[in-house]
């Protein structure tokens, strides 16, 4: 009897184990934004991650990582907060706080930071195809802005 129950228990565990392999993790439709992207000028690469329910993009590669004047790694020297002007530019989150809007398949409510002048602009992201983004930075209303096209990069594998 005990052996029979043990067999049933083992089979149940195995069945549950099999089931658990079949269950796919739920992904948010906005997660298609995740990945590494390159702006049109090709001078940087930005990795977009999700933290909580918002999306953020940080600089992970710069074509010119060092300041030509000092030879040191570039820092966010134009940051309006003097206490943060020595933060490394590589790693800086230039895209912040984007929320996915399923209704029009876009990411809104976010901002884009221009480290060249220390300015932050409102921004909206639209995906024109799975490897192309329209990133529109604007002041006040979307009509007063500029759109840049970013391309997805494939992450290296071992």
């Amino acid at each position, binding site marked *: 009897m005990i052996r029979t129950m043990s067999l049933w228990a083992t089979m149940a565990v195995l069945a549950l184990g099999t089931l658990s392999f079949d269950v796919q993790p739920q992904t948010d439709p906005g997660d298609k934004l995740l990945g590494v992207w390159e702006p049109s000028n090709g001078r940087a690469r930005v990795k977009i991650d999700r933290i909580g329910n918002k999306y953020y993009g*940080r600089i992970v590669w710069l074509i010119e990582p060092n300041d030509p004047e000092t030879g040191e790694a570039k820092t966010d020297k134009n940051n309006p907060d003097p206490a943060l002007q020595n933060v490394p530019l590589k790693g800086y989150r230039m895209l*912040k*706080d984007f929320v996915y809007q399923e209704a029009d398949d876009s990411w809104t409510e976010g901002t884009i930071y221009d480290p060249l002048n220390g300015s932050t602009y409102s921004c909206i992201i639209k995906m024109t195809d799975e490897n192309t983004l329209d990133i529109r930075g604007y002041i006040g209303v979307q009509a007063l802005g500029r759109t840049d096209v970013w391309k997805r990069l494939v992450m290296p594998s071992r």
Partner: protein
Amino acid sequence: MNLAGAIFEAKRVESNLLAMMKNRLLQACAMAGVALTLWGCAGSGDTANYEATDLAVVLAGPLFEGPNQGQTQFTFSLAAALGKAFEPGMKVRDARIQSAEVLPGDSLGFANVRSFVLSFASDNPDASMVEAGFKNPLPAGVNRVDLDVAPNVELGPHMAAGEVYVVLDADLDEDFWDGDRRFLLNLELNITY
């Protein structure tokens, strides 16, 4: 209208103008007084120190040369933080970072780490992610890193949200294909309520 009448009329207009300017000045002073009072109220308030300690930050591998994101989170409750001192209606009005300390969380310590950047975020739709501290470059041979913090950065909206996401970016000088990197984070914040 004779000359005397014209002079009288001019003086009357001048008098009215002066009275109007005086009223406007008084109104402006009164409004400034109200604004200063409100500002004074907003600036006052009780403060409390809050410590979030032993926060385990994991940088999930594979990790690549350059900045890699580590993340942890903690739940803040003003009622829990204040204990018996808490009264209904109290809420977080401001929060500033006082100190941030990073400790090794695995046997690798700080090997191959060039710099750290500390940021705060939350699901609060009205609050933007903010950088609140960094260390660049990391001193050699240390077994603990005190980050340079930015005490002017406003963390109140994130603390008020309750669930606070803490992001620690580590800039690595080489790839780590196998395994994760782990650090412990101790934070001290000043809460105004």
